[in-house]
């Protein structure tokens, strides 16, 4: 007899971040506690550092076997080689012998190394500072007893918060995620939705016990501890239905139509070529947003023009004539890139990000524009600029783009100027949309919402403010109207478009082009099919 059935079931309410059902044991990830170390004897501190270094090396060695991609493997191998070198930690051990605690000694020793790389003339050497920071933090986590736990598949992970890198490194098959912090629009939630991982936020994870059986209902934002046999059966059934529904949606073909037969375009948001492998271009109306940050992140050096061109061209070829909208680099904000974004922005979301950064780093921007101008020859490419605030920014981008095309042609290469559009995510741009000479508009609802409400999307206490309000819908309607009147397409590529509950409200505003994560294609198309016209 299963003794779990004897324990009392109870329910914990959170907020839905990604739909789906997961059933499995809870796994608590240790919370951060960098300053929790007690001072002990020099010999104990010495041993603590020895152990932390050995454990870090073991973790990295295990990780390097799994990554399977060249770039990541090179980065990890470098960190392992550093750990194997006694010279790295020697100054730390000297400080410990002099009475310093292990974590401060280690930080001080690494600070010297990091400063030396930060000060290098050569950008390749300068970029190594981030590897050393990564290594420093890994060892500090070990010293603080925050073990890098390996997450097996099929468990429900409960943690305070989770960085996107860790989410991506985890095998989520049949698993789910419960966080205390974060919000439905945080980046981890976006990843969870696009990968079909059930997730809820706003749960007091302190009270959860490791190993307890649990059931996660991502739709209802509910965590059920020790579910009874009946509840389990209900959810098993629901999970089976969901995976069936998902299959059915994927095989669904043809244009999306409202109940009254009006055509609505549904495109997808993608972050790389890998996501397209499982998708048939026949199932979508094109790519409404291809992010390019992922080409630049976690690398030793910035991507070359040729590398970018190859990827853009393959995207365009995949779409086989359907539009592919590529967004120029949207770094900064919460998406820092080593050697490119400015460190220490006081308020990153209001700082040098998106087009603001591109226009300050013309060396990097020009390369991207050249790669795009070359890929434009291969098919139906469109390019959009993120974070445009005033018309002059877009005008400068267009001039640079024209220059790039001219340059390429002079060099004897094929190139053309694709349609150039803008993201509408800054309220100032939405309010004065008539002033911009964009070929098309794409509303970035995630940032628009947080800028309109002056409420961070990552602040769980403000989740009620950072939501699609009447003010937001008013701005969306204004932009869509202007687009209709001036014969320019307006799409919406934020999370709002992928929320089946908001589809009707967006259609009410006149929006007829949606761009959603591949996982939301089915539910959004279904919501469109139910729509029969403005509700009263």
């Amino acid at each position: 007899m299963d003794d779990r059935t004897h324990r009392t079931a109870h329910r914990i309410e959170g907020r839905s971040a990604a739909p789906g059902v997961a059933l499995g044991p809870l796994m608590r990830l240790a919370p951060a506690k960098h300053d929790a170390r007690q001072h002990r004897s020099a010999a104990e501190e010495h041993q603590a550092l020895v152990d932390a270094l050995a454990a870090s090396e073991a973790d990295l060695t295990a990780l390097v076997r799994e990554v399977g991609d060249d770039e990541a493997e090179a980065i990890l191998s470098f960190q392992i080689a550093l750990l194997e070198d006694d010279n790295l930690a020697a100054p730390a051990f000297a400080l410990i012998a002099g009475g310093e605690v292990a974590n401060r000694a280690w930080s001080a020793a690494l600070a010297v190394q990091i400063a030396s790389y930060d000060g290098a003339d050569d950008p390749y050497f300068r970029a190594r500072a981030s590897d050393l920071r990564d290594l420093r933090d890994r060892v500090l986590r070990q010293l603080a007893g925050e073990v890098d736990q390996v997450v097996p598949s099929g468990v429900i992970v409960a943690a305070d918060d989770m960085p996107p890198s860790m989410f991506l490194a985890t095998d989520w098959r049949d698993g789910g995620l419960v966080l205390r912090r974060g919000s439905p629009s945080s980046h981890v939630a976006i990843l969870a939705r696009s990968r079909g991982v059930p997730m809820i936020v706003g749960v007091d994870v302190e009270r959860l016990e490791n190993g307890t059986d649990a059931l996660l209902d991502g739709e209802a934002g509910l965590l059920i501890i020790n579910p009874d046999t009946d509840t389990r059966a209900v959810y098993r059934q629901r999970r089976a239905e969901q995976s069936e529904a998902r299959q059915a949606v994927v095989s669904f073909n043809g244009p999306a139509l409202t109940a009254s037969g009006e055509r609505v375009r549904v495109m997808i948001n993608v972050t790389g070529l890998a996501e397209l492998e499982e998708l048939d271009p026949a199932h979508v109306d094109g790519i409404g947003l291809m992010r390019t940050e992922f080409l630049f992140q976690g690398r030793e050096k910035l991507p070359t023009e040729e590398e970018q061109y190859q990827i853009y061209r393959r995207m365009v070829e995949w779409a086989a004539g359907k539009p592919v909208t590529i967004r120029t680099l949207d770094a900064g904000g919460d998406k820092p890139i080593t050697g490119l974004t400015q460190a220490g922005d006081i308020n990153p979301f209001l700082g040098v990000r998106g087009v603001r950064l591109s226009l300050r780093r013309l060396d990097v921007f020009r390369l991207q524009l050249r790669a795009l101008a070359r890929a434009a020859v291969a098919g139906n490419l469109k390019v959009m600029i993120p974070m445009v605030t005033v018309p002059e920014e877009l005008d400068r981008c267009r001039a640079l783009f024209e220059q790039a095309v001219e340059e390429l042609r002079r060099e004897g290469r094929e190139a053309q100027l694709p349609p150039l559009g803008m993201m509408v995510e800054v309220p100032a741009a939405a309010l004065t949309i008539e002033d911009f000479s964009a070929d098309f508009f794409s509303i970035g609802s995630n940032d628009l919402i947080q800028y309109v409400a002056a409420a961070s999307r990552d602040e769980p206490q403000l989740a009620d403010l950072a939501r699609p309000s009447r003010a937001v819908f008013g701005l969306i309607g204004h932009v869509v109207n202007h687009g209709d009147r001036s014969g320019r397409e307006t799409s919406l590529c934020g999370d709002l478009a992928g929320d089946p509950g908001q589809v009707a409200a967006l259609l009410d505003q006149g929006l007829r082009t949606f761009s959603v994560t591949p996982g939301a294609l089915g539910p959004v198309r279904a919501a469109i099919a139910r729509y029969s016209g403005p509700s009263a």
Partner: protein
Amino acid sequence: MNKLRASVLMRHEVGLHARPSVKLTKLAKAFESRIDLGLSPDGPWVDAKSIVKVMATKAPKDSTIYFRAEGTDAKAALEALVTLVDGDFQDGR
């Protein structure tokens, strides 16, 4: 004890960077001899088995790398290291 010397021009695109340094120090550690590395025939010398020290030289592309080795397998060590650097660290990238 004999101290052997060798030098080789490094043409790797990004200099004695992370990936090349990992390969170089790993190879050096395969030998028993004491092996030093420098960017001039007169040093200063650093331990070629220490990636921390080797990376700290921040040797750019087109530097000449100097080695000196002392020990029973010094000759073999120098040959292997020169071949590695000369062969662009078996790494065309």
